[in-house]
């Protein structure tokens, strides 16, 4: 029998095609997994490298600023040391007698200032602290007594005979600091002092532009500015935003009004001051932050691309999946149809008998009527006789029609449709069909109907196909003389059809293979081995279960369980159905 292409209507597409909601669920699941797999490494890597980058950057900035501070402190130290050395060599030289004359000291200041423009003035003091000689802008200082001044007491007492003061105002009322040395001449102590112009000193100290946005200044041990650029403060003020300056060198980050600052410090050797280099963090990290911003842009762009690619890939995947599912459903449906056509073919052979017998009657009746009219044979026309024959011809013709109708009724129902089915009625129709085929094998078919009509939402055509297959199998198992009992079972969650026969039974080793395709014990040409596997496929596709219990020599019982309402979108719990199936099969009535 050739298979015609089977038209698959929308209903069946819906039934066997994954529903829209499950496809949406699949799409989101796949998308989420794709995104998790691709984004987590990207984000983790970005975060890790960003952390590493900033840690390295911070270390580098700190090192750079610390080095700057140390280097600059060294420079300032050398500057001060050179002034001390100049003063000491002057004090011990024999260029002039102490105290020098006014012209001598003026000339000396000129020479000194020529060498070092930070030097403001110079003075000579006797052992009692009297300002004996002075050269510089503050002439009124000459002759004053410095006996009670801090610096004088210190340099007079100091071991090293050199003293460098902090910045102070002194008699002149202007900030300055001094370097004083003690010397001896003619058995008397003399003191030479130079004053350093803080403004010029500031310029030198702040002349550090090694690092962008950095400023250098000097504070004493109490945190008072000794040298400071005008943009930051003025000397003798307390320096703001200073961390605890522990140790000779260090670096800290401090928060201020203008944002966080990096503060590096380095102690001077010549004097108990600390050189501070302060840099705004924004300046320190600025270029790096720009790089980081670019990296962020690249990462975000990648994210967008990954998300877009994932969405596209998911959509393609789901579309292909859905297409292949549709193809699969179509193939399955074609297989079901093929099974049905094969059954139909087998039945057609058996049903020829059901057609040929009435045809034989019709031929015999008409022949007899001809014989009546044949003068050599019959007695001629007999009205009553003829009417009887015509009636029986008509009856036989109707018999033929009934057979073809039943057969076509089974063949025609190709469209799959879920609808309300009364299992009692469906069983009656099926038995009608089988009876035509097996009536003469002395097989009795008993239908055990449910107490009330058992209405199930399912595909009537398919269930009929399966039931027909089971009943025909049962008849084959019996051969001749036996009974087939079809029971319609009403269960709480589902409905059942049980076909019990008094046939040969199925050996245990065959029971496991029963529902496998192409498994058959029939002779070649008698069966395809597809009937039960197709039945299994059909029942499963309708959310039901099919099972068997059998004992060799006693018979077999096949059981179909169907959900009361089959909804392809929400298939019933297969495990629960299987449990129910085993429960019914295991019950004493379940066996043949």
């Amino acid at each position: 029998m050739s298979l015609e292409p089977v038209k698959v209507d929308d209903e069946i597409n819906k039934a066997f095609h994954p529903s829209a909601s499950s496809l949406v669920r699949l799409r989101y699941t796949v998308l989420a997994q794709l995104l998790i797999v691709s984004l987590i490494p990207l984000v983790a890597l970005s975060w890790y490298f960003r952390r590493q980058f900033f840690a390295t950057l911070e270390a580098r900035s700190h090192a750079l600023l610390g080095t700057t501070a140390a280097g600059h402190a060294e420079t300032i130290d050398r500057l001060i040391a050179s002034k001390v050395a100049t003063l000491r060599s002057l004090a011990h030289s024999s260029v002039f007698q102490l105290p020098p004359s006014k012209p001598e000291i003026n000339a000396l200041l000129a020479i000194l200032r020529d060498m070092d423009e930070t030097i403001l003035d110079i003075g000579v003091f006797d052992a009692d602290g009297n300002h004996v000689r002075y050269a510089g802008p503050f002439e009124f200082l000459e002759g004053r007594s410095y006996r009670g001044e801090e610096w004088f007491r210190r340099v007079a007492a100091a071991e090293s005979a050199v003293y460098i003061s902090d910045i102070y105002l002194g008699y002149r009322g202007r900030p300055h600091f001094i370097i004083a040395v003690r010397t001896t001449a003619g058995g008397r102590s003399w003191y030479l002092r130079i004053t350093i112009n803080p403004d010029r000193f500031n310029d030198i100290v702040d002349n550090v532009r090694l690092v962008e946005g950095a400023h250098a200044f000097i504070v004493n041990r109490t945190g008072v500015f000794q040298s400071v650029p005008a943009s930051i403060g003025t000397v003798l003020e307390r320096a703001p935003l200073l961390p605890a300056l522990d140790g000779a060198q260090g670096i800290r980050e401090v928060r201020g009004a203008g944002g966080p600052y990096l503060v590096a410090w380095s102690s001077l050797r010549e004097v108990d001051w600390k050189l501070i280099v302060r840099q705004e963090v924004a300046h320190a990290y600025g270029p790096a932050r720009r790089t980081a911003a670019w990296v962020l842009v690249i990462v975000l762009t990648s994210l967008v691309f990954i998300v877009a690619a994932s969405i596209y890939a998911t959509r393609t995947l789901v579309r292909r999946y859905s297409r292949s599912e549709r193809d699969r459903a179509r193939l399955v449906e074609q297989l079901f149809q093929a099974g049905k056509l094969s059954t139909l073919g087998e039945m057609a052979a058996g049903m020829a008998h059901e057609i040929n017998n009435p045809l034989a009657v019709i031929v015999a009746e008409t022949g007899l009527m001809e014989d009546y009219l044949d003068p050599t044979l019959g007695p001629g026309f007999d009205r009553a006789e003829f009417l009887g024959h015509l009636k029986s011809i008509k009856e036989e013709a109707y018999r033929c029609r009934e057979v073809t109708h039943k057969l076509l009724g089974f063949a025609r129902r190709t469209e799959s449709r879920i609808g309300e089915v009364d299992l009692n009625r469906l069983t009656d129709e099926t038995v009608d069909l089988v009876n035509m085929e097996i009536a003469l094998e002395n097989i009795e078919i008993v239908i055990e109907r449910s107490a009330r009509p058992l209405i199930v939402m399912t595909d009537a055509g398919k269930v009929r196909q399966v039931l027909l297959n089971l009943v025909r199998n049962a008849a084959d198992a019996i051969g001749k003389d036996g009974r087939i009992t079809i029971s319609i079972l009403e269960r709480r969650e589902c409905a059942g059809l049980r076909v019990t026969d008094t046939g040969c039974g199925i050996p245990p080793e065959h029971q496991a293979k029963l529902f496998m395709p192409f498994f058959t014990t029939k002779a070649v040409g008698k069966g395809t081995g597809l009937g039960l596997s197709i039945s299994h496929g059909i029942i499963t596709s309708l959310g039901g279960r099919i099972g068997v219990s059998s004992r060799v020599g006693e018979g077999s019982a096949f059981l179909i369980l169907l959900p009361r309402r089959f909804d392809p979108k929400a298939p019933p719990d297969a495990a629960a159905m299987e449990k129910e199936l085993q429960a019914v099969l295991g019950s004493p009535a379940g066996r043949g």
Partner: protein
Amino acid sequence: MDRKIKLLFVDDEEKFLTSTTTRLEMRGLEVHAFSDGFAALAATEKLDLDVALLDLKMPGMDGEELLKKLKERFPQMEVVILTGHGSIESAVTTTQSGAYQYLQKPCELDALISVISRAYAKIIATRRASKTARIGELMARAPTLTPLALLEELKKIDSDE
């Protein structure tokens, strides 16, 4: 032919049985019709039948079984199968069981009568052959028999159908 063909006709299809019986009788056959294999077999014992016309698919005893039993009890009887459920398998098995012909319903009455006639002709031929063989055998034994005994034997052979 001064003797009617005696036909056993078994078919569960009553209407077919009666109308076909009538038609055959109209054509000079002696038809013994039964719709049941067991009844047919029981009646055959008393009737001296030539040809049997059997349906295959019947409730109770089917045609194949009846064929075997008839052939067993009346080896000379020729059996014609007339079935609505024709298949190569059943044709082969019935022929192997000794059926003379296998016909399928619906069948033209002339064809049916022709087959029955040929079956009957075969029976006649077989009977004659058997009679000739027996006479030949008797003549071979003749020297050992008394003339009276020989005459008796010949009469017996002649009267046997």
